[in-house]
């Protein structure tokens, strides 16, 4: 007897509502190439990306604040392994604390030679200053991939 297997594929489409706060955030990215956070009235923290309520005070945020475009790397990784349904490696991405923000936002790091892992990792070390770069207006769709980070010279 040969032990048998059966192949199955899941392919499901969702259409997620973003809500008012995220919709405004993406509208500003798309139309004005600006990154906005939301300030918490009780502790003054600026949440980036913006949330309608604070994870710390649990209160509603009440003010839009522009942050960046400069910032500092808080975490990174460089992916060298291919994974299904994820981009072709290598690629570098991670989290940046934009100037004026209290929390870090994720994005790709571009403009770095990733062929030598150790040398690439040195260029992205925690604390490195970066600037936010935006896609051309015609290419922006209102998504976190409309912007990325490059190391400041």
């Amino acid at each position: 007897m040969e032990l048998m297997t059966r192949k199955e594929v899941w392919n499901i489409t969702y259409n997620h509502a973003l809500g008012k706060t995220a919709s405004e955030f993406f509208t500003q990215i798309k139309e004005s190439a600006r990154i906005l956070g939301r300030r918490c009235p009780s502790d003054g923290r600026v949440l980036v990306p913006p949330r309608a309520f604070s994870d710390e005070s649990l209160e509603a945020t009440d003010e839009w604040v522009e942050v960046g475009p400069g910032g500092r790397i808080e975490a990174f990784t460089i992916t060298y392994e291919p994974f299904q349904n994820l981009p072709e490696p290598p690629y570098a991405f991670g989290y940046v604390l934009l100037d004026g923000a209290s929390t870090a936002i994720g994005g790709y790091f571009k403009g770095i030679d990733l062929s030598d892992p150790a040398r690439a990792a040195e260029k992205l070390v925690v604390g490195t200053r970066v600037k936010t770069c935006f896609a051309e207006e015609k290419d922006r769709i209102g998504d976190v991939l409309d912007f990325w980070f490059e190391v400041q010279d």
Partner: protein
Amino acid sequence: MSDRIGIIGIGQSAFKSRREDSNYPELVREAVALAMQDCGLGFDDIEAVVYSLSPDAMVGIGNAERLGVDAVGAKNKRFLRINTGGSTGISSVAAAYFHVASGACDVVLTAGADKVGECGDSQTVLNKIWDPIYERPLPLGTISMLAMSAVRYMHKYGMSEEDMARVTVKNRRHASKNPNAHLRKECTAEEVLNSRYLCWPIKLYDACPQSSGGCAMILASERYIREHGLDAVWITGVGHCSENYYLGDRMSDTARADHADAFALKNSFARAYKQAGITDPGTQVDVAELYAPFSNTEFHAIEAAGLAELGASPAMLREGQFDLGGRIPVNPSGGVLCTNAIAVTAMVRVAETALQVWGRAGDHQVKGARRGIASGNGGDHQFFGTMVIEA
């Protein structure tokens, strides 16, 4: 809650990459049969079943606990499913514990299985745990998430890739003594360092395998155990704690918790220790089975468990303090790094700790272990479960 709650039966598979000889419910039944045999009870004695099953997409069956209902004998019984990601297994044991602790039941079974090897790419499934609005467009997975934890830990405490490699070497050596472990071949630090990068600094040998297998445990009230003359070890502390949601909220000078550490895991341990009366884990714990699917994460688990100060564990590991035969052996089974059947991985941590304090761990037994701890991490820091088990 004056009565204690005991573990009276344990069953686990010999974990492997694939189990073509067993379909999903057959694999669950294998572990259940071993646990029933271990305690000597029959299915009629079981009053409730807690089913241990992490994301459906990993086994590719929606609410697969339905498919497993006959394998665990739950027909006409209390039956529920727990899913807290990687910590599912310890959360399931906790749910079984609370069924007994509440007085609702005297004997409860918890069981499950996983066939991660049947999933074409577990990172595709795990990428879906991220928010589709702000995070999903990025290629996040559990490997990249914990690679970023490693980067921050390196930055804060100076961990090196060699320190990470030593964790793998230790755990593979332990796994070589555990017949149920998946990766049982010993390796050298050079082999770890020369293995290919997945997500820098995590390399192939810093990462857990995708395992198939099941685990089951039977818990009972102290009164029932005494009345039926059963042998048991005791769950004396149970903790849980959650962290906030967004990864980036744990990265700044002002963040309450840092993604380098496992802040909420520390709080979870504090709750379990308080219940168990442990005030100095460094001297009161004999053995630890800590959830760590990547080599670097064992360090923040050791520190969250209070077995080392923040940032101090790499040096202590280098000295052999966490080896079998060392001061406090950590993951004598080989741990998650050598076996990861996600739905039951954190249950295996509890089961292995129980076997240790029972004196039944075989070749990887920690001599004279009387009190042990277990942990499980789920999600991106949202589900930290912990337990103290005593002889």
